């Protein structure tokens, strides 16, 4: 695993040179895709908060009992609880970590972070974005005008304040973040990994460009011909992508733009259970919804048809006048 904060450029390019970037089919099962992620890796997670979370991939990694992962995501919600509560990650890099604004503080995050056994590394939202962007640009840092003067910067020796060589103004340099692997969920892509994202793209394009490998989960695999009919909709090019998995409802119980909204009854029941007891409640939740089901389909059945359809009706309604 990388032993430095910012990957030396030669190593970044070596990693790239070793990737098979040819136009090839790369469709695999969820289980096979999980093996792309190894213990100790830096894992970038796409989407934001409760939106387009690559939940199926996180579900699979928890089932495969990965460990010591370092997760980065612009804003973390119940996915953060799950990676801490299951023990697959001991470090989360993000700007905000709770279950959702409707539910106040996450007792799961508090339990693991306040006891000191797991780390929540806080950056401003824009700083997370500029770290992925620097990673995607192949430069070691980008300058920002936020975070200075706050106590956040005092906790982040990784950020360096300098006097601008052109103006003399103070400016903060945030280090590039090149995850070993990125997990991104999209509405559709072709078997090569040309990915089209509807609605909010969050930081997923920068994340895909920055990562040393990308696992794409998709609601639907479409033909390459279909992608070529609307190339302006393609947000991530195939050569960034190393694996494609077709997983309908792959963000459940979170939302996927235009297809389904968050499954709020499930979310509310989850929050009540894990905040009631962040260890035992989480363990019971994981046993029931993550470890026991034989398949993603069985997991969706446990959430329930009624809730899935309700979320779907709301999700599709965004296109109604």
């Amino acid at each position: 695993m990388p032993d430095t904060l910012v990957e030396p450029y030669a190593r970044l390019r070596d990693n790239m040179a070793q990737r098979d970037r040819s136009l090839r089919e790369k469709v695999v099962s969820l289980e096979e895709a999980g093996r792309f992620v190894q213990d100790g890796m830096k894992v970038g997670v796409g989407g934001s908060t409760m939106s387009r979370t690559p939940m199926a991939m996180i579900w699979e990694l928890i089932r495969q009992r990965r460990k010591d992962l370092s997760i980065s995501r612009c804003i973390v919600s119940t996915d953060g609880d799950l990676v801490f509560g299951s023990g697959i990650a001991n470090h989360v890099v993000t700007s905000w970590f709770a279950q959702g604004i409707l539910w106040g503080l996450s007792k799961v995050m508090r339990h693991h972070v306040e006891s000191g056994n797991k780390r929540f590394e806080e950056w401003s939202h824009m700083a997370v974005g500029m770290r992925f962007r620097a990673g995607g640009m192949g430069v070691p840092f980008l300058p920002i005008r936020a975070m200075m003067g706050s106590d956040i910067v005092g906790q982040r020796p990784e950020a360096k304040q300098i006097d601008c060589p052109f103006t003399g103004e103070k400016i903060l340099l945030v280090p590039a973040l090149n995850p070993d692997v990125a997990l991104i969920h999209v509405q559709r892509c072709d078997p090569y990994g040309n990915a089209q994202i509807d609605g909010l793209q969050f930081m997923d394009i920068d994340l895909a460009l920055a990562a040393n490998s990308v696992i794409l989960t998709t609601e639907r695999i479409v033909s390459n011909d279909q992608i070529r009919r609307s190339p302006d909709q393609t947000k991530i090019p195939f050569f960034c992508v190393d694996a494609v998995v077709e997983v309908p409802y792959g963000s459940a119980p979170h939302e996927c733009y235009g297809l389904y909204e968050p499954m709020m009854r499930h979310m509310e029941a989850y929050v009540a259970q894990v905040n009631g007891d962040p260890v035992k409640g989480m363990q019971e939740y994981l046993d029931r919804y993550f470890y026991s089901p034989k398949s993603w389909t069985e997991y969706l059945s446990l959430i329930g048809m009624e809730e899935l359809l309700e979320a779907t009706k709301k999700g599709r309604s965004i296109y109604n006048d």
Partner: protein
Amino acid sequence: MTEAQRYTASEILAILSARQLRDGQVVFAGIGVPLLAATLAQRTRCPALTILFEGGVIGAFVEPGKLPPSTNDQRCTKRANMVLGSADVLLLLQRGYVDVGFMGGAQIDQYGNLNSSFIGDPASPKTRLPGTGGGNDISSLTTMLVSMKHEKRRFVEKVDFITSPGFIRGGTTRKDAGLLSGGMWRVITELAVFGFDERTRRMKVLALNPGVTREEVQDNTGFNLDFDEKMHVTSPPTDHELETLRVLDPERLFIA
């Protein structure tokens, strides 16, 4: 019915906050009361208000009864002019396109610094809070409007941790830290409207909410307040403001 029973604390918070916005402005709004108040302003006095959300939305026009559960949900994009990446919408603040940043707050101090990271010693916190989100970016880069509940434990002399900077330690300390633009402008609570002294940068009362006394505001504040010499009493919420607000949030998601 007495004045105080006509509306809840959250309702007067949203209504007085909405009154701070001007038609034609570009406002970057956080979730909760800010989103609701910006939308209220848009549906009453400010039809040309452009609302930005950190999920990557320009020109939001949130539907009544369909308030989004965060500013990163699809409901935020309804009838918007544009969607873009979340880093890119935050960069609009840095470039200077945004007139007002509009946020809620958990803890604020006399210089308008906001804490949403730690209660107690950050090295060994009593409570680890959710963190900044876009709050630090918004408050570092633009003029700030903050709506929050008024409690003594929330209005403190010095925050435990500066997550989102106001005027830091007052005077010129914000500029000295490298923050060359923006700063705290207004804080709205269910008790009063606050501004900041031009020189000392300390918080001061600009107006009392209807039926609220100076003593009541001071008693609920953890530091000595200054009262502006032109301090006045805010006019109460109109029926139109209250009705519009209740249509926007019929389930009382943010105006409980």
